[in-house]
């Protein structure tokens, strides 16, 4: 059973890697890191700040774009091209298919982040000429970015399991935007009254919390990230993704494939 999931994951990974769109986006992200170096040189004393801010933001945003663009097609493309039919006529369970697709894309994004991170670290080394221990914070920020990718992949996969690519993309991007303001949504819920409060609180807890995963500016100022937060975020992402994927499985299990 697990072997099949791994095979599907490997195939998904392979498909993503051979997709030329991926390379364009990685190249662009690396370009941003290079640009960060130039921008940093304009303002004195904050080159490091700019490199980390701009570089990590580029990694984060481009990664989200990749995750969404590949994620929305994960299921719908297979249905359109009927490749799914030949897979499901084999002893492959539908939920195994979802799990495999998820792992494949998540794996792709991890590898992706690795390469983009090299760009950031290279730019960092260039501007500061040496790496300090505070720069380990960048690794934590990158880890959180990967966690962001995991959540957005799960969401893109959920939408892909029942919706057309264009709607999946819209929903996924919107959830990312709203999730980035999740903290503000909770503040708003705390200030509201009556039914607005109820709805806002419900929304605040349902929406994926991307704001807690964004420690870019903290790290840029060399502030350490508390260990507690790392543990909480990891657990949260795992649990939330599990919920989203269960939703995807539930939908996909009973879907009539046209």
């Amino acid at each position, binding site marked *: 059973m697990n072997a099949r999931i791994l095979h599907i994951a490997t195939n998904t990974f392979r498909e993503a890697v051979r997709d030329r769109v991926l390379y364009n986006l990685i190249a662009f992200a690396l370009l941003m890191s290079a640009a960060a170096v130039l921008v940093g040189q304009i303002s004195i004393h904050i080159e490091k700040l700019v490199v980390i801010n701009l570089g990590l933001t580029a990694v984060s945003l481009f990664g989200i774009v990749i995750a969404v663009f590949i994620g929305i097609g994960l299921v719908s493309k297979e249905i359109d091209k009927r490749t799914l*039919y*030949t897979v499901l006529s084999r002893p492959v369970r539908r939920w195994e298919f979802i799990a495999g697709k998820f792992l494949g894309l998540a794996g792709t994004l991890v590898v992706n982040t690795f390469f983009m991170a090299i760009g950031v670290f290279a730019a960092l080394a260039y501007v500061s000429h040496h790496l300090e221990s505070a720069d380990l914070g960048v690794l934590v920020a990158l880890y959180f970015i990967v966690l962001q990718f995991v959540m957005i992949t799960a969401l893109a996969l959920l939408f892909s399991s029942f919706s057309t690519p264009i709607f999946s993309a819209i929903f996924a991007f919107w959830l990312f935007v709203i999730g980035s303001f999740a903290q503000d949504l909770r503040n708003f819920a705390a200030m509201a009254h009556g039914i607005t409060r109820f709805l806002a609180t419900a929304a605040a807890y349902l929406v994926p919390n991307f704001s807690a995963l964004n420690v870019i500016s903290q790290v840029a100022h060399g502030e350490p990230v508390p260990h507690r937060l790392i543990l909480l975020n990891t657990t949260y992402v795992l649990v939330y993704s599990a919920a989203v994927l269960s939703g995807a499985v539930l939908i996909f299990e009973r879907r009539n494939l046209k």
Partner: protein
Amino acid sequence: MACTDRAIYSFESLLIIFLRCFPAMLAINILGLEKIYNVGFWRKRAKRALWPLNLRVEEGEIFGFLGPNGAGKTTTLKLLMGLVFPSGGSARILGMELDDPRMKAQIGFLPEQPYFYDHLTARELLRYYGQLSGLDAKQLSSKVDAVLEQVKLIDSANVQLRKFSKGMLQRAGIAQAILHDPKVVFLDEPMSGLDPMGRREVRNLIEDLKTHGKTVFFSTHILSDAEALCDRVAIIHQGELHGIGAVAELTASVHGKVEIVWQTAVVPAGIRSMGAECHSAGDSTRVILPEENQDAALEALRREHLRLISVVPVRTSLEDYFVAQLGTSAKSEAVSSRTLHPATGDGQVIKR
């Protein structure tokens, strides 16, 4: 379909099935399988794709599922593959339920106009499918190569599928369907879009499968292929089964005719007197006569010393049968005839 009709119909099907218990296992046993789609966003309208279908396919036979486009052939196949869930009825393949992974390991499926993962090469594609089918890693490579040879794709084994022609894709599709040596192979329009060479190759492959003891269930709207390959066929139209039986039986014409072709444009008196229309084209003449006049006609030609080119019995083709079936069936007629002569699925011919 009225409730009482449906009740009678189901009861009769059950009765017949009960009375005719075959000792051998059926490759495919479809019992009242039906599908209704709910279309529309706000107000769901029921759209029927398949009326309750009863069908039995024996092991080792080539079974053709015929019908025009949109008849329900693909729906039936999707129901059997578990891609779409039935609104009613059930089916068993090799005696096992449709969601049984053990059953799925023993069947192969080629969907209509497939694309496959075009970033993979043929070999990679088959390896992937082989892994998913649970084939042993050690045997996988040799099996993949063997099957590539069988479908004559071995030379393009390392070419990416996006560069494959339509015929090659179709062959790749058949390759993945038979890779794991399944007992039953389902093919949805396997000849579609192929040139004559391609069609010939696929026909040979299908016949090959039969000699290896496999059951082949394929859908098509090209009747000549069905005529050439199938042991039995079923005809489906607008979601309903209209006829089922061996090809020979279905096309057996009541009034046999024979076609005689001879050289020169001269029509001997004996033949002319039979009153049949003679067609002359170039330096040969053709006539279609009732079977009983065959000997007399040949005698007439021999007396005139005319050179005989061919004598061919003319049968009602499957096409004629097909058109006759589909052309005359209005909904009400179909319903009334079904209650009188239900499609039993065991080889009885439906006479309308």
